């Protein structure tokens, strides 16, 4: 009973307070306190995430499931980065407090933590993202087919955006005067038309729908109608 009632009361009071604070300056400081709790919880979520990472990967290693070596590498990298970062191993001494090790800078390239960031994390994450270009190109060749009217419209839009996002757009149609009756044939004008009218109209509709959904869900949570976030045990 208490395990469900107390979280519901905390949620309801915090939610109502955030709404009331919008209209009552008197409650603004309370709102700051509640948001402070939220930010602390968000920071604690990092610890929970680390715990979950440990649990999942240790289980994979202990059961020797396929790919367990990758789990071991993940844990090793996690442990090294955590220790090096948390204890500021090899930190560059602080000029004002050279005797205090923890006052030193650990995220500079001269320190191991900065080295891990510069020479491992940055290249690895950049590479992962860059590989998308290769897969998108392959997918475009195999799957982007003009099989029906909708696909043809999508293809036409893709060509306009792809060309207008580069100098090719200006090279091909930039010679058409912007104030002429044919200016709608300019690729940059077509792109503006697509993004500012067609795309924006669709996106506004989606955004308004999401906002109404969020408001409705929030009210259901605040008034205790939706209890799906609570543990069933």
């Amino acid at each position: 009973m208490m395990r469900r009632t107390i979280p519901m009361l905390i949620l309801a009071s915090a939610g109502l307070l955030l709404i009331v604070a919008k209209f009552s300056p008197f409650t603004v400081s309370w709102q700051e306190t509640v948001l402070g709790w939220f930010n602390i919880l968000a920071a604690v979520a990092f610890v929970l995430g680390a715990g979950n990472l440990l649990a999942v990967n240790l289980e994979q290693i202990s059961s020797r499931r396929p790919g367990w070596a990758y789990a071991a590498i993940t844990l090793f990298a996690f442990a090294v980065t955590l220790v090096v970062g948390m204890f500021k191993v090899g930190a560059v001494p602080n000029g004002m407090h050279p005797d205090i090790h923890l006052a030193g800078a650990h995220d500079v390239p001269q320190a191991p933590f900065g080295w891990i960031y510069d020479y491992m994390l940055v290249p690895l994450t950049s590479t992962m993202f860059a590989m998308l270009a290769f897969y998108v190109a392959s997918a475009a060749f195999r799957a982007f087919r003009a099989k029906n009217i909708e696909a043809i419209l999508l293809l036409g839009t893709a060509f306009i955006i792809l060309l207008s996002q580069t100098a090719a757009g200006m090279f091909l149609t930039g010679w058409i005067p912007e104030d002429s009756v044919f200016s709608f044939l300019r690729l940059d004008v077509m792109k503006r038309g697509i993004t500012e009218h067609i795309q924006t109209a669709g996106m506004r509709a989606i955004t308004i729908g999401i906002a109404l959904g969020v408001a409705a869900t929030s009210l259901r949570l605040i008034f205790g109608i939706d209890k799906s976030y609570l543990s069933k045990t």
Partner: protein
Amino acid sequence: MTTKNTEQNPGGMRGFFVRLGGLDRRWIFLAMGLSIAVPILLKLRFPEVPGPMARATFEAIESLPNGSRVLLSFDFDPASKAELQPMANALVHHCASKGHKIVFMALWPLGKQMADQAIKEILLEYHGDKYEYGTDYVQLGFKAGNEGVIKVLTTNIAEAYPTDASGAAVSGLPLVADARDLGSFGLVSTISAGYPGAKEWVQYGRESMKPEARLTSGSTGVQASQLFPYYPAQLNGLLVAVKGAAEYETLVTEKYPVDRNSERLEQGRIRMGPQLVAHLLMIALIVLGNIAMIASRGSQGGAR
């Protein structure tokens, strides 16, 4: 029998396109690799004509009185660095050229490092003689809490950031000591790769800023469609992807040129070369893929 074989294995140009449909994807990977590598090695550059969004971003910063206090939020990480760091660099150079007092912060854990790079390579490189830490710029660093951090900033900056990134109390830093909330800034600009980012700044931060204050954003291409509805009413300027960075760089460096290491402020334009060739390759691949589909339909008697 001969007719059937000819239809299944057509010769000539049609046969070529039918076989092209089964092209090994490694050839496509090679073509994409070359289309990126060759323009980089040849340093292909193309002129950029700034569009209305880049001009609006430029004007939003340009029209601020010199020496205004501005807040730059680095809401991205190394995965989006190639797309966003060029516009971040140009933004910092533009603000510093106008003498604005800059407060750096990050809603993404690695955003602080992105801001550090811009401080080191742009702010201190080109404006180091007139920018002193604490009075002219401050690095607040990363704070966990996503939109919760923005919400706290709307009422009490010291509550969200009692110290700067190095642990020094903000009360001892003149630039932020008297900044109570977001209303203390003439400009808030977010370089954003997703959540939390530009959308959250509009939804939670915009209304607590002064009416005359500006909110601008630089965003990745994939995120831009979520931001178009907010431009130009809530977002006074919007830079989209490398193209937006290249256009903005052009405007900034035309008005505020630098006398050394100018390539640091040309990264957007440098990246437009590979982007042009890669986009043309994509279009060619889509066209070839469709020709192959039509050719293979023809070879099967138009049955499909």
